[in-house]
């Protein structure tokens, strides 16, 4: 278990460094990294500090958020298909963010963007939990997710099409697929407070989620307050996903793939899985963001393209497996 965490931490550290070292401005790795720490009064320090550092930091933060949120939801619903992207939480967060930007709220009030994304995500999580019920049967969960995703995607597209700005309508892709291109430290500071709150809430879940594997009655007998557990999960997930989506769009499948891969290594215990998925999510998003820059260095290939290529086949596999298991 601890060996797994060390391995994951090293992977994340390596990927974080690689994310800093890779970019269209081809500079030697050593010089780039030294320009990050020592101001060379030239363009390279500016590139490293203002462009690559925020990108790598956001990749790290968003990966942690999506991994934790996925593992948390799967643990609570006891369903491996619960991914914030698939069940419509990211989509509804994107709707909140789009509304904040296009009503001018985000320009008028600094935290308007993340808070509206949080509100959207809360709405999404709440609806899903309501529709799926405490047990979270696979069919209702997926159907509810499809409905919420489609509706929020449609409403986001509507808002973007109604905008007087000629570029807005083309940004539907960004909100549906997500990207870390051209973000700045402003976005890091914008997302961090809300994300940190989300991490704290989700980090308090492991004991409760472990107890819940024995069933709700047993968990309550062990002194777990299920109502509080549920509330923390809902708010924590919404905060994580809301903040991530507000600055980078909806990046799907991270919360599905990562817990699935890591589950065997934590003996299927949802508690430790949350911690492992935090690091695993960071590794996946950082890796995806490196690959999009390697495939198309000068264009903005969306992150969601890569995560879906990896995630969607796995999703199909999981559906097949749960169907056979008769869940």
């Amino acid at each position, binding site marked *: 278990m601890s060996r797994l965490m060390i391995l994951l931490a090293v992977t994340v550290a390596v990927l974080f460094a690689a994310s800093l070292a890779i*970019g*269209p*401005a081809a*500079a030697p790795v050593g010089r780039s990294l030294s320009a990050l720490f020592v101001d060379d009064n030239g*363009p*390279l320090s*500016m*590139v490293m500090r*203002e*462009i*690559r550092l925020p990108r790598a930091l956001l990749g790290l933060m968003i990966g942690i958020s999506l991994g934790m949120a996925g593992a948390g939801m799967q643990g609570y619903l006891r369903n491996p298909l619960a991914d914030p992207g698939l069940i419509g939480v990211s989509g509804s967060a994107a709707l909140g963010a789009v509304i904040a*930007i*296009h009503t*001018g709220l*985000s*320009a008028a009030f600094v935290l308007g963007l993340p808070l509206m994304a949080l509100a959207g995500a809360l709405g999404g999580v709440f609806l899903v939990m309501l529709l799926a019920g405490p047990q979270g049967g696979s069919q209702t969960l997926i159907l509810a997710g499809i409905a919420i995703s489609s509706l929020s995607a449609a409403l986001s597209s509507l808002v973007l099409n109604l*905008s*007087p*700005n*000629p*570029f*807005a309508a*083309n*940004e539907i892709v*960004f909100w549906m697929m997500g990207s870390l291109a*051209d973000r*700045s*430290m*402003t976005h890091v500071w914008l997302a961090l407070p809300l994300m940190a709150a989300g991490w704290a809430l989700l980090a308090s879940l492991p004991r409760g989620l472990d107890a819940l594997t024995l069933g709700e009655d047993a968990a309550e007998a062990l002194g777990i307050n299920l109502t509080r557990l549920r509330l923390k999960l809902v708010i924590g997930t919404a905060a994580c996903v809301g903040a991530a989506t507000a600055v980078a769009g909806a990046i799907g499948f991270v919360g599905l793939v990562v817990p699935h891969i890591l589950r065997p290594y934590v003996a299927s215990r949802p508690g430790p899985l949350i911690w492992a998925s935090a690091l695993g999510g960071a590794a996946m998003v950082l890796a995806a963001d490196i690959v999009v820059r390697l495939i198309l*260095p*000068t*264009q*903005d290939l969306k992150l969601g393209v890569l995560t879906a290529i990896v995630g969607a086949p796995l999703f199909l596999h999981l559906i097949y497996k749960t169907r056979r298991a008769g869940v």
Partner: protein
Amino acid sequence: MRLRVGPSTSASVRISKLISLGAALVFTGAAAFADAAPRRIVSMNLCTDQLAMLLSDPDRIVSLSYLATDPRSSAMHREAQVFARNQGQAEEIYLQEPDLVLAGQYTGVATVNMLKRLGKRVEVFLPAYSLEDVRDGILHMGQVLGHQARAEALVAQFDADLAALREDVQNRPLAALYYANGYTTGDKTLAGQILLAAGFDNAITRAGQSRAGNLPLELLVMLQPDAVVTGAKYPGQSRSEAILDHPVIRTLQKGRETGTVADSDWLCGTPYVLRAIADLVALRHRVEESQ
């Protein structure tokens, strides 16, 4: 022309009369077509809108594209106010009964083809990629509208004004054009030629780019241009334009001269590009003073 001689002479006479009448109509029609300029002109493209306004008699313009009155895109948005506007739909344009439809190369292909099938005369204009293309476009429009003399006068004026703006620049400062989504234009574009004519070197050329395309923010920073000329913002918010507020752009512009591209003067190959050149020449003078 031989006519069938039949028992009923009165009928054949009627036929011959009809035929000669028809022939006469065709000939006079063709003659009118060859002689006179088009009388019902419909333009479907922002750039042909402006060339038509510059060269045609106003009473011959039936409608212009809906962009003609957009102050952000059209250099002649005020002049365009008096004309009717179309949305570029084949149906509405056909019903306006034009005898000449002006379209751009990228005007809806389906619409243009349909109008041609319906027997309308459609003249397609290529976008300008250079100042030479601007001259060609004016002359082409003059020919199509039957106003060659006006077009030649306009080109002569354009040449004279352009010559007056050109200066012999020893050390050409480095400028970058940067628009929403990190879009930029190289030397082989009208905007790039405007930049060159104003005495700047295009920073993008140093990144090995000559056409229009995306330039990652990192590369822009590494080029360290003397001036960053950004696209003017449209109303409302967009993530695409957020890049123009990126701290890096702010830093690049801090302590340096900056300019804004007003699309209206840059988009179309009209004499209004001279206004863009004049603005940039003024910017270059400021850059040279500050160095």
